[in-house]
Every structure is written in structure tokens, then in C-alpha cells.
């Protein structure tokens, strides 16, 4: 009842949709637009060399040929496949290991030093090694992505399960709940917001893994496009690769936030 009235009054404050949009996003929109304008002016007016800096309009113009030749789709497909397989494997394995560490003391003691140690290590530096071991195909990239994604997932899953609110455990216990029931009714749902946060952190790390691994040697992929463009001083094409990755990162993260709001609405406040 009170919730409805609140929503209504908010609407009455800003009756026109355009004005409401402007008041919410106006500054962000203006700032991005201004930044692009400065970039364009700097690239054309001061640097004036495509070898050093491509302007936004030159980047947009470079999309056309890359798309028509099918190159862009091919690179995108390779990178997407590497990301999905590596990220998916890391999520499943990471959540499973997180459960294992949270539920068994010996497992925790045995695995904790590895998890903490490897999480702190910039494992992306090991990418050349994995390419040496597993070849220039997609498998080496999947391994790098999985290695980068898995640790925040393990750690968040474990933390979430460890921080089960004891007052809620006691409540279900007062109704005679078994250990199993306590886990499914309290521990697991209480851990979900933490697990989701770990999965969200993994997105950015996974994208870095894809690109860096491809930089060290690949047949195709957005990282390979960037590498190859840099070697031929094709700055517009290089920036196309970067922009596609940036957009993918933004879309994946905001899609995830959207999903999180629906699946774990209680985790928001």
C-alpha cells in the first residue's frame, strides 16, 4: 500500500518522461558526448595522424570494411566462444570448490593456501606458458580465462556460506530443522548474493583473460585483431577491437546486474 503511494508521488514530481530521463542521465550522457568530442578534435586537429590516434568517426568508419569481409564476426565468435567456455567452467568449478571449502575443515586447510596464493598472483602473466603447453588454439585461452575467473568465485561462495546469519539458523532450528534443511532453507539462499557478486567480478577478469591470452598468440579473436592491427599501424581497426570488448563488458555486467535483481532481490539492501 505505502509502496504504491511512494511510486506514484515520484512520478508526479517528474511528469514528463524526457525531463525525468534528463535529470537522471543528463550529466552522464553529456560527459560521454563531451569526451568523444574532445577526442575527435584532438585526433583531427592536433595529432592528425591515423598512425598515432584514430578519431571516433574514423573508428566507426573502420567497422564497415571489417564487417563486410566477415573478419569482425570471426574474431568476435572466437573470443566469445573462449569466454563462454572458460567462464562457464570456472563458475561451475568455482562454486563447487567454494562449497567444498566451506563444508569441510580439512578441505579448507588443504585448499586455502592455494586459493589465496593464486588469487593474489597475476596469473595472466602465465598466459605465454599456457600457449606453449596447449597451443595457439582456443583451449589455451579457455584455461587462462577459467584461471582468472575461478578465484573470486571460490572465495565469494565460501565467504557467503560461512556468513550464514546465525539468528536465522536458530529460528529454523527452533522448528526442529535438520542440518540439511538448515542448509537449503538458510545457508544457501543467504549465500546467493555473495555467489552472484563473485560471478559478476569474474566477467571483467574473464574478458581481460581472453584478450591477453590472444595477444600472446592466436589464430583469431579480438585480441588477435588488436595485435595484428597494432603491427600494421592500423589504429582504427585496433580501436574497433577495443570498443567491441568494452561494449561486451558493459552489456555483460549490466545484464548480470539485471539478472541479479530478479534472482536475488533480497540481496540489494
Amino acid at each position, binding site marked *: 500500500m505505502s*509502496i504504491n503511494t511512494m511510486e506514484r508521488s515520484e512520478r508526479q514530481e517528474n511528469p514528463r518522461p524526457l525531463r525525468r530521463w534528463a535529470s537522471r542521465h543528463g550529466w552522464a550522457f553529456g560527459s560521454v558526448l563531451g569526451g568523444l568530442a574532445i577526442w575527435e578534435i584532438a585526433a583531427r586537429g592536433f595529432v592528425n595522424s591515423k598512425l598515432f590516434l584514430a578519431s571516433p568517426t574514423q573508428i566507426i568508419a573502420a567497422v564497415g570494411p571489417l564487417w563486410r569481409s566477415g573478419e569482425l564476426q570471426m574474431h568476435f565468435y572466437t573470443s566469445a566462444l573462449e569466454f563462454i567456455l572458460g567462464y562457464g567452467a570456472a563458475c561451475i568449478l568455482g562454486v563447487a570448490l567454494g562449497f567444498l571449502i566451506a563444508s569441510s575443515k580439512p578441505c579448507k586447510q588443504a585448499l586455502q593456501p592455494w586459493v589465496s596464493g593464486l588469487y593474489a598472483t597475476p596469473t595472466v602473466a602465465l598466459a605465454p606458458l599456457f600457449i606453449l603447453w596447449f597451443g595457439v588454439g582456443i583451449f589455451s585461452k579457455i584455461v587462462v580465462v577459467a584461471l582468472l575467473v575461478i578465484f573470486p568465485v571460490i572465495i565469494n561462495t565460501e565467504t557467503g556460506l560461512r556468513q550464514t546469519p546465525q*539468528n*536465522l539458523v*536458530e*529460528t*529454523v*532450528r*527452533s*522448528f*526442529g*530443522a535438520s542440518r540439511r*534443511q538448515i542448509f537449503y*532453507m*538458510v545457508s544457501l*539462499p543467504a549465500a*546467493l548474493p555473495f555467489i552472484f557478486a563473485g560471478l559478476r567480478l569474474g566477467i571483467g577478469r574473464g574478458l581481460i583473460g581472453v584478450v591477453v591470452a590472444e595477444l600472446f598468440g592466436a589464430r583469431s579473436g579480438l585480441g588477435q585483431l588488436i595485435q595484428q592491427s597494432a603491427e600494421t599501424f592500423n589504429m582504427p581497426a585496433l580501436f574497433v577491437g577495443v570498443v567491441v570488448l568494452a561494449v561486451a563488458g558493459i552489456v555483460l555486467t549490466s545484464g548480470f546486474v539485471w539478472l541479479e535483481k530478479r534472482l*536475488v*532481490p*533480497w540481496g540489494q*539492501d
Partner: protein
Amino acid sequence: MEASAKLAVSGLTKRFGDLEVLRQINTSVGKGEFISIVGPSGCGKTTFLRIVGGLESASGGTVSLDGRVIDGPGRDRGFVFQQDNLLPWRDILSNVGIGSEIAGIRTPEQRALTQHLLELVGLKGFEHYYPRQLSGGMRQRVNLARALAVNPDLLLMDEPFSALDAQTREIMQTELLRIWEEGRKTVLFVTHQIDEAVFLSDRVFVFARRPGRLQEIIDIDLPRPRTLALKRTPEFVALVDRIWKLIEHDVRASVIEENVL
């Protein structure tokens, strides 16, 4: 009295390490009685309630319900916690139904009881709201309905209204009596508020501290059903005054101690 005793406590003691929290509690509670437990901080009243609820074990002595010794939580008792402790990921209906879900009961009778209780506590129409959408008073009603939904023989309430503002608390007291009148369950109600204890109860157990013990039992012979107007009668005020005098010394001591710490 002894013949119809619902709850029998004999020689109950509780220690946490060297600290003697409860010493030799002996008492009994009849079926359908409303008992409040008052006392200064640290008198062990909440520990006592938790032992009856099976959430804590006794160091010595026994508590038995209908002749069976209590050795753990069970569906014959419903616990109303100080914080509402609602599961934030469940809507109101499934929060209230959690006791029967734990017991694996999915009968139409159980569903009807759950529905009836929601109506009784004034939350009909809020079945599919989530706890965060409700006010503190509403959440405490859900807390109460959840405990009643297992149809317990004994209702255990641990300062359930202490987190509410003064006006909401008064309303909740009359609401609790209205709900209680329907089934007349046996109730143990722990509170800091003497007037709350007198208003609700048939008898008030006054606890003392260091060590926690049952100091005195006060009979409240005020007519039922009771309304808030009762709180302004001289009889009521006299009872509150009498209990306050019993615990005043202990309360002052505990307040001074807390300030020193």
C-alpha cells in the same frame, strides 16, 4: 495445580563456564496460563526461555512438558524471537508456513490454519509480500503467526515487542491478548517492561540476578478481557509498583555495572 501442570521445572541450573546463570529453578505452569518473566539484565530470564525452547541445554535439573523431559527443540513449542528473524527470501505466506514445511506437513488443514493465522494477526492480503516490504510491527505479527502455525502446546516469547516504538507496542499487547483469547495457549513471555507483564499475564515470575533465580511469583487477579484502560486503574498501578520494588535494587546494580564497563 500440580495435577494439571503443563510445564514442570525442577532443580534447573545453568552455567556458562564459571558463571552461574540460573540456580535451582523450581516451578510449574498450568495449561492455558499466561506467564510473564521479568527481571533485571543478566537475571537469566532469556536463558531460561531458551532452555524451555530446547535451544540451550540445562547444566542440571529438568524441564518437562506434559511429562516428557525436554532435550531439544520441537514442534510442541513455538518460539517468538526478539528480532523477527524472517527469512528475507521467502514471502510472508511461506515464512509463516516454515514450521510445517520443516516437519513435511502439506495437508489442507495446515494450509487452512496458516491462512487463518494470517487473518488473525491482521495480515490477510499480504501473503505474497516480502519481509522488507513490511513495517516492524507487521513483521512481529508474522513472527507470532509463524510460531502459532505449528499449533504448539507452549508459546515462548522472548521480548517480542522490545524493538517496537511505544505506541505500536501498546497496540501489539492488546492484539496479542485478542489472539491468545482464541486458543488460550500456555504462554511464557519474557519482557523488560513491568507494565507489559502485568497487563498480559495471569502470573508474573520475578527473577533476581547473581545468580539468576526465581525470586517471587506475583498473581495478577485482574479481570479479562483486558483493555488498555486497565493500565490506568489503581489496582494495576499497585501491581506494577510492587514488582518494581522487588527488582529495583537489582536493576540499579546492573545499570551501574553497565556504565562502569
